[in-house]
């Protein structure tokens, strides 16, 4: 490579030469063609109007964005974010110990366990969700077991509640949390942990001072991979929640179907994306270098 002197030291973050640009080009082209262009289209749509048929009339108006700030939509934004947040936190708490165990297992077991984590998600999510419905519903498995164990007098309504929504979200996003944390755990240096114990730290101390900080990139990645999609998720929240708590994903979906108002749906979507981008940029500024642990 023209960039490096043969055998010399090559620090990361080096200036890109033409060969590097060539290697970056697949990503560049893909982003440009299949991400940038559709996004531009979306933004254009969000400033447009539509006709009776629901077709987009490309024009310029701020009406759609102004409408986004009505109380109705803001409160729906809020509740969607809240659900996603709760689901993410639970995923971290539930997923971390599992990811830790898998990451610290023997190489053979690691591979098996990791694949076993994903296998349930190679069934259709609809079938999985309907299985949960059959477990949680009034005449379903959970209630039958609890009743026969005399733990409850009458069946509990577990379906179509916030509990069901969170459960559905956690169930579907848990692997998204486990996998990234696993990759961080997997490269943990054993000697560091041993050293911590040797120095007299108890397990709690070892975790809080050594292990968790070292696996932070994995936790951050996992949180991102769960929180972000969870906000716009609508299928699970509708199926498990019954639809009485509309989410922003459902609202946007409606704009493209029943309400025939694509521009408004696009505006809502663009705002949602801007929200994330701003957060991401702010967080990015805090990180001084790519190698801050």
């Amino acid at each position: 490579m023209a960039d490096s002197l043969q055998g010399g030291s090559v620090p990361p973050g080096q200036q890109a030469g033409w060969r590097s640009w060539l290697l970056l080009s697949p990503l560049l082209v893909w982003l440009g063609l299949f991400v940038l262009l559709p996004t531009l289209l979306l933004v254009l749509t969000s400033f447009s109007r539509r006709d009776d048929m629901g077709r987009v009339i490309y024009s310029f108006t701020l009406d759609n964005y102004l409408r986004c700030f009505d109380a109705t939509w803001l409160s729906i934004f809020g509740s969607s974010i809240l659900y996603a947040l709760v689901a993410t936190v639970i995923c971290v708490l539930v997923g971390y110990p599992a990811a830790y165990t898998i990451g610290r297992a023997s190489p053979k077991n690691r591979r098996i366990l990791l694949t076993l984590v994903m296998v349930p998600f190679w069934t259709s999510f609809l079938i999985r969700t309907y299985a949960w419905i059959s477990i949680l519903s009034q005449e379903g498995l959970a209630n039958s077991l609890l009743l026969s164990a005399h733990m409850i007098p009458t069946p509990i309504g577990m379906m179509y509640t916030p509990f069901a929504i969170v459960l559905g979200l956690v169930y579907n996003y848990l692997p998204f949390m486990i996998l990234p944390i696993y990759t961080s755990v997997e490269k943990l240096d054993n000697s560091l942990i041993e050293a911590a114990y040797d120095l007299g730290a108890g397990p709690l101390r070892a975790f809080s001072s050594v292990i968790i900080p070292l696996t932070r990139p994995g936790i951050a990645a996992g949180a991102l991979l769960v929180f972000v999609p969870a906000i716009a998720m609508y299928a699970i929240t509708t199926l498990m929640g019954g639809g009485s708590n509309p989410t922003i994903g459902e609202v946007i979906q409606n704009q493209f179907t029943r309400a025939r108002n694509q521009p408004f749906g696009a505006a809502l979507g663009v705002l949602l994306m801007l929200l994330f981008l701003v957060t991401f940029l702010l967080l990015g500024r805090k990180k001084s270098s790519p190698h801050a642990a």
Partner: protein
Amino acid sequence: MKTIRHLILALLPWALVACGSKPASTTGNSDVPGSQEEKKLNLYCWSEYIPQSVIDDFSKETGIKVSVENYSSNEEMVTKLLAGGGKYDLIQPSEYTVEALIRENQLLPINPAALSNLANISSEFRNMPYDAGNKFSTPYMAGFVGICVNTDKVKTPVKGFTDVFTPNHKGRIVVLDDAREITSWAFATEKLGINDVTPENLEKVKPILKKWLPLVKVYDSDSPKTSLKNGDVDLGVIWSGEAALLYRDDKKFAFVLPSEGSHLFVDNLAIPKMAAHPQNAHLFINYILRPEVSRKISEAFPYYNPNSAARALLTNEEIANPASYPPAQDINRMQTFRDLGKQAAAIDELITQIKAGGK
């Protein structure tokens, strides 16, 4: 090495073009009857609404290869159709969508001469308000929305919407997840025409909806029978076909048309303007109109069959299903939805607002 990898990554998609892409279908319509069209049919229909056996039998008989694509809502179909991505020969729009498509000149007129079985459609379905003289559409299946009650759990008589949405049923109700439907029920209780969707009328029914919606536990248009079957709800306002399926399996599920009034929905077969195989499309429609074929469809989907010849072939039990076939005078009294255009968004917003607990 890296450059080779880059090349592979760059070329792979285009290699897939060769094996994956469909050759562009010939555009335009062949006016010459019969043999000019290739033996293909691109069917774009509701998921699980045309039994696969029906499609297979048609293929076997005519030698026409049918490729099926599904959608789960009228608007999804319209979006894809108008975007121009798919070249479809036959679509299955509901009544208000037919009206909108006719207005936009998106449909090919149906040639009655090619449909020898057209006479099988019963008279009340011959001249629909959304398509005068059925020039562009042929009714496929009709149905309505009504009240389904689990009589094991609900002992008090339920005759209409006001009986459903009472405080003692709080949290035990399922309704369709369809803003337009829900609003039309409120309109019915206020004796307003279901197509008179004006801002004033919406304001009028707002208090009713605000009273009703907090009592609802589940909104489900895809499979409302699920929550009824599971015992998570005790009654609901659902599609007649869903209620008919419930009744078929367990007679405890009673069905009643709301006393305040109900409306009829009609799903139709129609041919898009850009269809490449309109002759084959006509053949398919004619096939569906056959009594024994239509009867098969009724077996799988016990909605209201507009094909009177098919109805004559139904078993007594099927005809006796109150959710499938209510008394004839009720059908004649029913209105159908008209296309609302932009007002659809206003309804959707109203319902979403109330669901979210707004003012």
